[in-house]
């Protein structure tokens, strides 16, 4: 029996938690605050698996049909 790993499901893209420096660099390039990014809730199953806390920023590598690979970010919020 295949063990279920939520991160390996075909609908779930690759997630990584950004380090403080990376978040700062991201803020600088786009000239935004973290809250301006799309959000993800702390209660989201992905956040639970990764152990992401409110205030973290997740990097998402999506497989886009339009662009091949596309990179997005989500800001972890409480709730």
């Amino acid at each position, binding site marked *: 029996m295949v063990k*279920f790993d939520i991160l390996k*499901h075909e*609908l779930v893209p690759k997630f990584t938690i950004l380090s403080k420096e990376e978040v700062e660099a991201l803020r600088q390039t786009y000239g935004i605050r973290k809250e301006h990014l799309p*959000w993800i*809730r702390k209660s989201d*199953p992905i956040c639970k698996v990764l152990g992401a806390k409110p205030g973290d920023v997740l990097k998402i590598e999506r497989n*886009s049909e*339009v662009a*091949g690979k596309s990179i997005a970010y989500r800001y972890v919020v409480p709730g």
Partner: protein
Amino acid sequence: MVDKKANTKAEKEDQKLTLINKLLSEYLDKLPESLITELKEKLYKLELNEEQMRKVVEEVNRAYIRALVEPGEAAGTVAAQSVGEPGTQMTLRTFHYAGVRELNVTLGLPRLIEIVDARRTPSTPTMTIRLDEDHKYSLEKAKEVASRIERIAVENIAKSIEYDMVNSSFIIEIDEEIAQDKGIELEYVARALERLKVGTVEIEGNNIIITPTTTSPDKIKRLRERILDLRLKGIKGIKRVLVQKEGDEYVLHTDGSNLSAVLQVKGIDPHKVYTNNISEIAEVLGIEAARSAIIKEAFQVLDQQGLDVDMRHVILIADLMTCTGKIRQIGRHGVSGEKSSVLARAAFEVTVKHLLDAASHGEEDALEGVTENVIVGQSIPLGTGVVELFMRFPKEGA
């Protein structure tokens, strides 16, 4: 001689490839991956020298930048119109699922409305379940997995159920053929009924006799329903499972959906389980998976109806629906109802209520959006209108 020729040819190809890679290397961050791959392929086929190749790449880059959305472009309005107009041409009829017998799935406009309304459960929930290596190539084994998923209640295997007034007991006649087909024994049914703890359970030939402790007609009526609905096997919510051959493997299609329970079933490939219930996906697999599901479902609906809508419009809608980490509907209880501007909300629906509420709470309107500026008759923040001027006063003494 021949060898040498082949060698030089291969070397030439090699050189060409490194040249292309070198040319494209500085564009890796600037162009999307799909464009880079396409460029690589096309450049490789063409007979061009380095200078010409460079020019091609530069031109592609220029065209790409020109095609990007400009600041202030009304991308949302364009997306709404691009999905809305073809939506008027969609049929309201529900068709049978192509390829799957007897399984009805809502398609067309009703389904599209369901998706953007972010309904908790779709009107026809259905799952597509792929099997693991051990089970997907044999019909026998696929059926075995299917029987683990399909919900069997007492009513599915009972021929009749009667209430005997004289002995005040239920007589359930079990259809042996069906029960055998579903792999359920009489004793198993009796034991399950015993667990209901409503009275004594006896087996008499093909019949199961339940003598409830209560005789009140009201309770007996309700008890009948409970007995019939008692789950013997399978997963809650999955009414039917169809085994379908797709290519060289067997795939299960279900009527009804229960993602978290199906993921626990043995013999399936849990990483490929799919359901059309988007809120279930959000709950079990997270908001990003829900985003991809919205895109997939909405685009599929448009595609099936033969409407050629660019996927990026659909992607924008999905992004808007999921950007708060929860699925928001496009409408009163979601995107439109949560606008910060009073005037924009009042312009959408239930005008008086919004204005009254705003007045009693002393709300202010910053006039930052499009709608409110149209209402007050100012230039709207779109296109060149988004640009604001700030003046820097000269420092004192300068």
